[in-house]
Structure formats: C-alpha cells, structure tokens
C-alpha cells in the first residue's frame, strides 16, 4: 500500500485503521488542580489539548454580568508549535477568523448543555491550549471541555462528545487525522450523551446530501464510543479519589 493512499482497496487507512475505527483516546482530569477549578488533558490521536475551567466566579467586568444566568467565555489558544511546521504568522493567532469561529461554535454548543441558570451573576471561563494538533481539532476541543466541566463540578445535562468524519468517495471514515482532513470533505459532530441528538454539526466543504445520513450514522456511533471512553476514564479517576478520601 502506498504511503499516500488515503484508503486502500483492502480497507486500510494511512495509519492502519479501518473505516470505522477511532484513534488512540487517552484522557485524564484534575491535571491542573492549582491553576483552575476544573482541568483536563486529552490525547486524541496526536491531538494534545489542555483545558482549564475557571469558575463560576465573580466577573471582572460589569459587562460580563448576567442577572439570570452565568456568562460562558471560551478562549482557544492554538500554540504556534502545534503543527509539524511552525505557523509563520507574525501577528496574534488568537484573533484569527478560524479560531474565533471555533470559539463561537463551542460557546453555542455548551451554553445549551451547561445549566448556566444555576449560576446567575457569575462567569465561567474556559481556557483551552492546543499543544499539538493532527486533524479533527474541534471534536477534540469538545471532548476536552466536557471533561474539564465535569471536573469543575458544573451542572450539565449530559456528556457532549465530538468527532470528525470524512467522506472518501462513498466510504465514510471515522475520526480523521490531518492528512485525511486535507484530502476529503469532513463533518464535525457534537453528540449529546447516548442519544442521537446533535448539539453541533459543522460542514466546511461540500458533501452529497444522499451520503450525509451514512456519515452521520457512523459519526454518532463513534461519538457514543468516545462518550463511553470518557465515562470509563472519569469513573476510574473518581474511584481513586474516593479511595484516597476514605483513607484519611
């Protein structure tokens, strides 16, 4: 199989996965307990993401104060060294349009999932640092935020798990990496818990409408798998915490 063949006739992708396989998914929470109220570190394939949740706290500015619910602010910091080639832009990468769009999408997703009405007159500040990226970044950001919010103890309706799916000719490919992402059109999903409800659907390129159902089906199945992986990791962590607490 050629190194640059996206999907071989035998049904293998560049990194040896089959069409419906996820990348390595490893996560830990409460990694920065001094720096933030909730934190998570996520490795999804070669994506490495640190998420810090600060709050609910009193807002610094009067303009961020909402009498009825908490204000949610999400800032995504994609480091210059996160890609294989260092990004050349001399200016501020934080104000890039692509990043701002991601932030807005994330705020809209999580505004509906976090029970912000329980924390009126406060701000919940979510800070994300992308140390390394390798495709499907928005999905990984969603997973990181979900885990960090759970660690912070913020009330939420359900897990949201994110995943990107590409469409190669007629075959949907689950959890694309950066090479696959560049080669085909992709869809990013945010799925609520074990349901089939989508809280985020992002399509940046053209996708044939009659293929979309297939793509969504495998995406939802993959997102459910990610939810289970996150759940297992969280429960393992909680077990350790409870054990430590009962020893004292």
């Amino acid at each position: 199989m050629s190194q640059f063949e996206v999907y071989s006739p035998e049904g293998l992708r560049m990194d040896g996965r089959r069409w419906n396989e996820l990348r390595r998914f490893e996560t830990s929470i409460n990694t920065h307990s001094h720096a933030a109220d909730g934190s998570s570190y996520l490795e999804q394939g070669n994506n490495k993401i640190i998420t810090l949740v600060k709050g609910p706290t009193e807002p610094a500015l009067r303009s961020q104060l909402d009498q009825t619910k908490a204000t949610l602010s999400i800032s995504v910091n994609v480091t210059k060294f996160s890609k294989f080639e260092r990004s050349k832009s001399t200016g501020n990468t934080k104000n890039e349009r692509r990043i701002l769009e991601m932030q807005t999408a994330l705020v809209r997703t999580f505004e509906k999932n976090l029970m912000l009405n329980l924390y009126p007159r406060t701000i919940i500040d979510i800070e994300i640092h992308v140390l390394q990226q390798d495709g499907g970044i928005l999905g990984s950001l969603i997973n990181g935020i979900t885990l960090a919010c759970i660690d912070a103890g913020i009330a939420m309706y359900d897990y949201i798990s994110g995943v990107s799916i590409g469409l190669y000719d007629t075959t949907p490919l689950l959890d694309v990496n950066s090479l696959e992402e560049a080669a085909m059109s992709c869809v990013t999903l945010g799925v609520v818990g074990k349901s089939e409800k989508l809280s985020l659907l992002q399509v940046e390129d053209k996708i044939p409408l009659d293929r979309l159902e297939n793509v969504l089906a495998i995406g939802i199945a993959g997102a459910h798998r990610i939810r289970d992986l996150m759940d297992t990791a969280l429960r393992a962590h909680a077990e350790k915490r409870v054990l430590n607490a009962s020893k004292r």
Partner: protein
Amino acid sequence: MTLSVAEKSYLYDSLASTPSVRPDGRHQHQFRPIEIYTDFLPSSNGSSRIIASDGSECIVSVKAKVVDHSLDSDLLQVEIDIAGERDDSLITESCTSLFNKVLRSIDTKKLQLTKKYSFKLFIDVLVLSSNSYPVSLISFGIYSALNSTALPKLVSNFDDLEVEELPMFHDYDLVPLEVNAPLVFVLAVVKNNIFIDPAANESEVANNGLIVSWSDGKVIAPIRTIALNETNTKGFNPQLIQQGIKLVDQYAEEIAKALTNL
C-alpha cells in the same frame, strides 16, 4: 495574592530580621521543589514542561528550521505567551525581550550547518499559570528544552559554496544539540536581605526584585531590577546587587547540574 496588613507586616519583619526566616522555612539560596518533563512533543525538536510546587506551569517547545544565515543572522528567537495576558502586555513584552537578550550568550556556531545555511531555533514558551514572577521558571524550562533538543544529522558537504547545494539530512539520525543555555534567577530584596526564588507571598512584601542571568560558570548581562509588587517597592543598598550576584555565582552551578542530569 492578597494579604492583610497584619500578615504583610509579620512577613516583612521575619524576612527583614537577622537571621531571616522565610515563611516556608527555606534557606536564602533554596528553591521550591520543581517537576520537569522533557521530550513530550514529537513534532518539536525539543520540549519541556516544568511545574513549580505552587502550581505555576510552563511549557517550552524548540523547533528548528534551515535558514540562510547571511540573510537572517538572528538564529535564536524566543516568543513567550502568558495565559491571561495580552501579547502586548508589559509582562509578556518584558519577558520576551529579556530572554531574547539573555540567549545571545549562546554560541550560534553550534547551529551552523554549512558555509551558507544554519539552523534557526524557534523557542516558544507557554506559561499556563504563574503565581509569582515567572522568568526563573521560564529559564529553567528553556534550559531543559534546549538540553533535550535533537537536530537532524547533516550528511552533505559542509563546504557548499562551490557546489551550490542545499544541505541534506540523514533520514532518521538525530544529533543532540550541545549548547550552554543560560539561566535566569529572580531574587527578592527585603530591607538588607536578599533571597533566591521568592514565592508569591514573599514577592508581595519585597522592597525590590533583582534579575540575574548566569551562563557557563559566570554571571552575565543583563542584570535588572524589577518591582515585584505595587505597594512596597523602595530603593535598596547597592551592595545588595553584589551580594545577589555572589549568591547566584555560588549556587547556579549546582542548579545547572541538577537540570542537566535530568
């Protein structure tokens, strides 16, 4: 950190007395424990993550690129990003300029590949959280990141002026970069005493701060003073600068050794 008037006065008095007592019982020259991990970013040539005992954390990445050094003579470039601070804020800009100056002590001959081309090192620093003035943490991070840096091995000819060829590299062999990275120390001045590595509460009552750089067995330029807080800053006896330099001279070697033996 917010301290009450009573706490501040107690802290100040205990730090200013002879012999002085630091709130965590450290010696004048003693650092707080730190944790360092290196080489965890496979897409960078070198990387390090350093965590101080108060939860301050800093991540450093070193990436290399081949440049024509006759066009671009600046072979080391530091960029610092402090979470929660703007890129043009005072602390970010002063740290960036400090480290760009400090790193000039590195001999760039080590980065030269051929008569025309050199490696340029991009050192990106991300300070995730900091409770006290972060330059000492950043410098330890840069030191260990540079020590863990490995660069592709040159297989083509060193003398390329006659044949006009681009440097060629070995497919997978890497050569560790051997440079004498400098270290930067923060010292706090309280009355007539001087301390290395002030914690947040010590910085809060310090009369002044001193930044001392050190490389390869001796103290080097730049040496600067900084205000560690907005309320307590005063002038200080110039002899304390000498004392600070002596203190760094005495202990920096051991610290560098500890960081190298990682």
